[in-house]
């Protein structure tokens, strides 16, 4: 029974959990930052610096203090929105990330729309036709999506669809010609180009987005398909499905009005998680398509040891997952009366 008080308590409890998780995340990123075999001082002063310069920078970074004290400084910095400066670009890290994140979000959002749009119906079709040819077909397709290395399919697709057939755009977010034409307001190229009224840029962006998004979408649809299929099979074996059929509902009505509404909760969870891992950065596809996104940013900074950037990236990935979990919890309440 839902009364006001327990749900209030639930909300407070949830906020508490989130705060504890965030704190744990900060401890983790801090430890990663300190444990990595990279020397932030050396990265700043360069190989030829004198010992004095090195010591000076070492102290100015607060590295001479005890570890716990350093952590509280870090905590204070994060809470005031100061994530440090990138050694590589000399700009505040957060500014760099705000620059690359929209590119990844654009890609991930389109990919998940394709992935769920493809995966959910395929999973339902497979479950409804269990052990008949549509099921086998769907299973083979999803097995392919699951097991093909995405950098390889990416390159093959580029060679065939871009280089040979010229159906889609190549690497990057738009054609070379258009770069810099549209002012960066939101960072989302599709939105920015529409705001600027540059339809050519918009279509060029779509053209460049479609292939990497489809490939990512196909690969995440493999997982979504398999899960949808098994969720559906679970529900189709339930007795209330028999009830629906006894009432005289058609197969279609039974599937969509009764079985499918019962798997929404589970679907939301797996789609949210799939979206999270896409946001975290599809490094391989971003590399193949020279997509200036978050995955590339994180990897390149890991390689050169730009720890401020890496720590902030890890923090952001954590926050994304916490936010997605929160979102799917809220959707649970919406979709399932038993959790209210």
């Amino acid at each position, binding site marked *: 029974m839902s009364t006001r008080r327990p749900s209030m308590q639930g909300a407070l409890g949830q906020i508490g959990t989130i705060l504890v998780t965030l704190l744990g995340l900060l401890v983790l990123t801090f430890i990663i930052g300190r444990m990595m075999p990279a020397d932030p001082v050396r990265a700043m002063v360069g190989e030829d610096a004198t010992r004095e310069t090195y010591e000076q920078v070492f102290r100015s970074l607060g590295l001479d203090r005890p570890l716990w004290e350093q952590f509280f400084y870090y905590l204070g910095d994060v809470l005031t929105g100061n994530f440090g400066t990138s050694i590589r670009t000399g700009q505040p890290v957060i500014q760099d990330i705000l620059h690359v994140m929209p590119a990844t979000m654009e890609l991930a959002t389109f990919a998940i729309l394709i992935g769920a749009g493809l995966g959910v119906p395929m999973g339902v079709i497979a479950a409804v036709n269990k052990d008949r040819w549509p099921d086998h077909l769907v299973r083979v397709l999803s097995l392919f999506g699951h097991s093909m290395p995405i950098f390889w399919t990416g390159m093959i697709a580029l060679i065939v669809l871009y280089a040979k057939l010229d159906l889609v755009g190549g690497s990057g977010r738009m054609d070379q010609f258009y770069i810099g034409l549209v002012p960066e307001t939101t960072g989302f190229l599709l939105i920015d180009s529409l705001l600027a009224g540059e339809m050519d840029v918009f279509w060029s962006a779509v053209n460049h987005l479609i292939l990497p998004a489809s490939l990512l979408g196909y690969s995440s649809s493999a997982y979504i398909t398999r899960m949808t299929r098994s969720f559906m099979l679970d529900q189709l074996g339930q007795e209330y499905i028999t009830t629906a059929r*006894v*009432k005289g*509902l058609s197969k279609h009505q039974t599937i969509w009005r009764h079985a499918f509404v019962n798997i929404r909760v589970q679907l939301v969870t797996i789609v949210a998680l799939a979206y999270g891992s896409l946001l975290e950065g599809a490094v391989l596809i971003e590399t193949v398509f020279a997509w200036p996104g978050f995955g590339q940013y994180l990897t390149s900074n890991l390689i050169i040891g730009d720890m401020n950037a890496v720590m902030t990236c890890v923090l952001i990935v954590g926050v994304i997952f916490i936010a997605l979990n929160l979102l799917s919890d809220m959707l649970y309440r919406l979709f399932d*009366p038993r959790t209210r």
Partner: protein
Amino acid sequence: MTRPILDVENLHIRYGGAPTDAVRGVSFTLGRERLGIVGESGSGKSTVGRGLLRLLPSAKITADKMRFEDVELLSLTEEQMLGVRGRRMSMILQDPKFSLNPIRKVGDQVAETYLRHFKCSRKDALQKAIAMLEAVKIRDPERVCEQYPHEISGGMGQRVMIAMMLLADPDVVIADEPTSALDVTVRLQVLNILDGLVRDRGIGLIMISHDLNLVRNFCDRVLIMYAGRVVETLAARDLDKAQHPYTRGLIAAQPRIGGARAPLAVLDRRPEWLEEVSR
């Protein structure tokens, strides 16, 4: 005697991939009466019920005759069958905990039966549902309509199920162990409600059960099934005068309050009974 509503002759049902028939050569008729089907687990009684509604997707159903009023059920297309299910013949399932959709409101689920078979607005269907819930003696039906299945009790859930299945005014209702999942204290209450409605509306009822006493009290005639066959058919009041050794065995295996505390008789099952022709 008038023509029976349901006339089944030599019904065979085999599940996909099974080596033998689950139901072999069952014949019976149903008038405006209450017919009990009794037997052990696996004797095929539920399979007969589901077979009549053609609800078994993987099973192969054959019969010399499976006439329901003026139609031969086996010759109907699935599309035509949809018009029979729920509207002219429906079924009450065992456990409301599983047979009601957990995430849809009660009123919505009950009204769906009406909406499916009659052209009317949602609001009118909901009104019908509320009236029907009242008929199954649910207090404050408007409130119950807004509740979800997990918020109502088992006895109430089964009354909701009855309301849902009788809403479109069918001629035959199959009750598949309608009270087995219920608390003993509400069993009788639910059965009386079902019995009252079935009598008032002149519905032919098939009561599938393993409970001999229940069938004795709530049915006119009883079929005894054993391993997919009907071994004996008799009037419910004559159950004690049963001739067949299997029926007698079932009766003997029942404990009685105040009866002797000696071990109960072990049920005897003989393969040769399968070869006998019933009736």
